[in-house]
């Protein structure tokens, strides 16, 4: 266990150094949601009629979760890049705890995400988003967000170890861009046709988004939603735990697999 912690810290340190040495990609990744907030916020915000609801306040939690879901892409790309460039094999040939490489990557990603979310929050505050609930509830919201990010990164790492190629990971990653579109991240699901609404509400992103809106006090839990959205906090925790429980062991096995 202490081996795992020592190796994991070394691996996480490696990922953080990489970001420090080449910050370009990380900065670009974090600029995206800020652009989307301004773009969606003012374009959709003008077109979408949401009674009793300021669209931009609705959108900020959605973008936070959509960005967290981007952990699939980031995790996948990094894992595929390491495998493709032979760095993974270097670690595999060394006496390194098998779980340390995926875990270190996911933990380092949490640090980067925490720092990287600050610009989105600041721009959110500038366009009218506020924390309207208690500080404790807001802290809970941040906790849920980070837990979900960790889960998504885990999924990404497993997929990246499977694809093994930077190009394939890039292509596959781009297709995950649609995941938040099929959720309540950008739009309320209430107006969707029945089957589509069900699909969107069983998207893990919807549970987390609804939980954040509830905890930040931005929007109430919608009526008549599917179970994970109707019980957003528990739904978010369960989704994240299930994703981690399935994909972390798969990623560790895949990493150790020869």
């Amino acid at each position: 266990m202490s081996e795992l912690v020592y190796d994991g810290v070394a691996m996480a340190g490696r990922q953080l150094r990489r970001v420090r040495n080449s910050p370009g990609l990380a900065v670009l990744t974090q600029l995206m949601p800020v652009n989307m907030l301004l773009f969606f916020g003012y374009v959709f915000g003008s077109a979408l009629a949401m009674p009793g609801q300021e669209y931009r306040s609705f959108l900020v939690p959605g973008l936070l979760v959509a960005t967290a879901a981007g952990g699939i892409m980031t995790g996948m790309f990094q894992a595929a890049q390491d495998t493709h460039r032979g760095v993974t094999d270097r670690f595999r040939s060394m006496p390194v705890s098998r779980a340390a490489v995926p875990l270190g990557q996911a933990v380092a990603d949490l640090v980067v995400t925490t720092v990287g979310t600050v610009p989105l929050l600041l721009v959110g505050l500038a366009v009218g988003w506020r924390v309207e609930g208690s500080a404790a509830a807001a802290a809970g919201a941040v906790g849920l967000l980070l837990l979900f990010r960790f889960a998504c990164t885990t999924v990404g790492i497993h997929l990246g170890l499977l694809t093994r190629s930077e190009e394939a990971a890039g292509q596959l990653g781009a297709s995950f861009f649609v995941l938040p579109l099929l959720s309540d991240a950008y739009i309320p699901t209430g107006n969707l046709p029945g089957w589509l609404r069900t699909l969107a509400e069983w998207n893990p992103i919807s549970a987390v988004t609804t939980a954040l809106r509830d905890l930040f006090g931005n929007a109430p839990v919608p009526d008549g939603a599917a179970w994970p959205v109707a019980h957003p906090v528990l739904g978010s925790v369960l989704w994240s735990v299930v994703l981690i429980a399935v994909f972390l062991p798969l990623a560790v096995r895949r990493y150790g697999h020869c």
Partner: protein
Amino acid sequence: MTTTYAVLSEGLEKRFGAVHALRGLDLAVRQGAVCGLLGPNGAGKTTAVRLLATLLRPDAGSARVAGHDLVRDAAAVRRSIGVTGQYASVDGDLTGHENLRLFARLHRVPGPNDRAAELLGRFGLAEAADRKAATYSGGMRRRLDLAASLVRRPAVLFLDEPTTGLDPASRNGIWDTVRELAADGTTVLLTTQYLEEADQLADDIVLIDRGRVARTGSPAELKALVGRYAQAVVADRDALPKAAAVIDQLTGAEPQFDHDGHTVGAVTTDPTLTLPRLVRELDAAGVPLLDASIRQPTLDDVFLRLTGSPA
């Protein structure tokens, strides 16, 4: 004295789908020796090294590396080996120093910072220590790769094509390092497509072909299998058949003619056939001799002869 083997494998098999990459590889690398693993493209060299470096799991067979079972005690194998190859790479987004320090930490080497600086100095990379490895030239990158596999002195070092694509100066530098390591008692298993490299470095050579060992021996033993090549160059094309008859009679082998119409030669395994004798016999037959030679075979000849395909 009994020989101890740093690498000993029996019947190693590996399939990738329909491709049967290794079909029962039996390998014995003497402790402290430099063993050159040669074979045509697709023979299974890289698969063999990846298996022995615990990067792949064998489908069948067994092996011991530095005394540890490859499958049951992979962790102990990993503590005893260093790997430098086309695949096991350093991180281009980290500096040279950061890479070596990370590997030193993972190997639990005391004083990882000092160890990194020491290795950078030894491999002529001190000035590039704080540059990202991605900005290194091919030769510098290869030296950093090699340094990375020596962070903790390995009992067995796997070098997969360590000098492919390098200029002669960089290549000589790597060769010197390999010789130093071997002199220090490190066992080296080297794959290469340059036969000269194997000739320069290897104590033993293992020729593999289609996933199996085709032949083993020292470079000299392998060359002796092929024999020397006796050759004559004549001043006048009309004298060529006469020269061919002499060479045929001396070697007992089928004479081969060059395209220039002036040169004929044949393989000989007769140790009593010396250059003076060759010249005397040709001269006595009245051949207007311009040049004569008995060439030692190169490993290329060995390769062609034993595997039927060029390296």
